[in-house]
């Protein structure tokens, strides 16, 4: 089954890391990616820039309405995603727990809908 792992964290609360800390963090993310790839579960992933770079588009009564920022103000913001192919929810949850962001943020595990599972 295909699952989307949506990663949320509070941008306002991101600590300032030292260069050594940053390197360790980068290593942790790299290691996760490698492990998921080796296990054959990784279908895709990407990271996003800050919500301050976001634009929200709504079309109402034929008019395009643009707002600066994310769709809603939330305490944690979407930071990126992983798309995984797993046996079942238990496996998807195991992978979610290994994501470095899970230590300080939230990882939402959601299955792709029934038509998207086929692709």
């Amino acid at each position: 089954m295909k699952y989307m792992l949506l990663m949320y964290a509070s941008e306002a609360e991101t600590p300032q890391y030292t260069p050594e800390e940053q390197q360790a963090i980068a290593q942790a993310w790299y290691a996760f990616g490698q492990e998921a790839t080796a296990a054959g579960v990784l279908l895709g992933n990407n990271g996003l820039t800050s919500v301050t770079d976001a634009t929200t588009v709504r079309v109402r009564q034929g008019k395009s309405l643009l707002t600066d920022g994310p769709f809603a103000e939330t305490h944690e913001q979407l930071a990126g995603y992983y798309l995984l192919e797993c046996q079942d929810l238990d496996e998807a949850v195991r992978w979610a727990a290994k994501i470095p962001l899970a230590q300080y943020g939230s990882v939402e595990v959601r299955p792709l809908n029934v038509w998207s599972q086929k692709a």
Partner: protein
Amino acid sequence: MTVAAEIERCFRAEHGRVLAALLNQLGDFPLAEDALQDALVNALERWAIDGVPHNPGAWLLTVARRRAIDRLRRAETLARKLVILETLDSQEEPAMDDEIPDERLKLMFTCCHPTLALEAQVALTLHTLGGLSTQEVARAFLVSEATMAKRLVRARSKIRNAGIPYCVPPAELLPERLDALLAVIYLIFNEGYVATGGDIPIRHELCSEAIRLAHVLVALLPPQEPLVAEVRGLLALMLLHDARRETRLDAAGELVLLQEQDRSRWDQAKIREGIAVLDEALTLRHPGPYQVQAAISALHAEAPTSAATDWQQIAALYHTLAKLVPSIVVEVNRAVAVAMAQGAAVGLPMLLRLADQAADFYPYHAARADLLRRTNQYEAAADAYAQAIALCGNSAERAYLQRRLDELNRCMG
């Protein structure tokens, strides 16, 4: 028993096992539930005429399977149905006399999967394994039938859509999953045992159902599995509490404390059974909190009078329990037990040490009030009772505390 009552009793007894087997074959919870409901409708019609069949479970499973195939053929969305149809068509239809395999262990763990909301776990366990109707479960939790139906439908959909696996958890997850399952069973028991007001028969039903589920769980797990010790511990604990059920409230529906209960009305058969189950648990040498709590309950149950209670042993057991599950509840109970064993003057300082952590916990203030009263500090005791009353949410317990406060005020004149 009338035919209708016999049929209903049968449905109740078979529901869990049939659904578990059906779910194993179909892999789709909502479909399995709907197909079983269809089969129950068929059964109501046929059994009223032909009588209850020799093997009702197998009859229901076979017919439910056919109804599932019918539903799949009629279903609009193509995506899943072809897979299930192919699997079903390739299997031979089981004979109506065959012993249906017992997959209830898988079902129990699935219903109590941690990714379901706790209230959904409880509702699903009662409905699916307990065979309670939606209406009965709704009454037990004081929600409308429509609300409960929605809760159940959502839970089954999530199980299917999110890919919750239908299996007994692997060894590395088994301890925490079993803990979660036991917590749900105990929650069901307490819902029946502690709640006051509402439907009394339903309350008793919940206690019996929780005990039955624990029995089933003990029967299905490998007997030498060390984790079974805690399952037995919980079963013993519930049996020992249930033995006192008749004496918990008096005729006016007011709370009667353990030391004031009429022990001649305690169910001795349940007490003997509880102690036997606890003894079996202890042979596995895998101690845990439920076993300790059951041991405490057993000491109360075995004391012929309140005065004969072995408080020293109970205090020691609370000490053990505190090490296993450190919690303010346990610490308060331990101080109370020490006060009973060694006197209020010894227990009170132990209790007062908990003041900061227990400020919002009404049993702490109630215990404090009692010990202050016993050491003749009446004004402080009255104040403590007042604090307990202000914090207490349970009407029977609040009424009990109010009576004590009134008594005290009368004494102080």
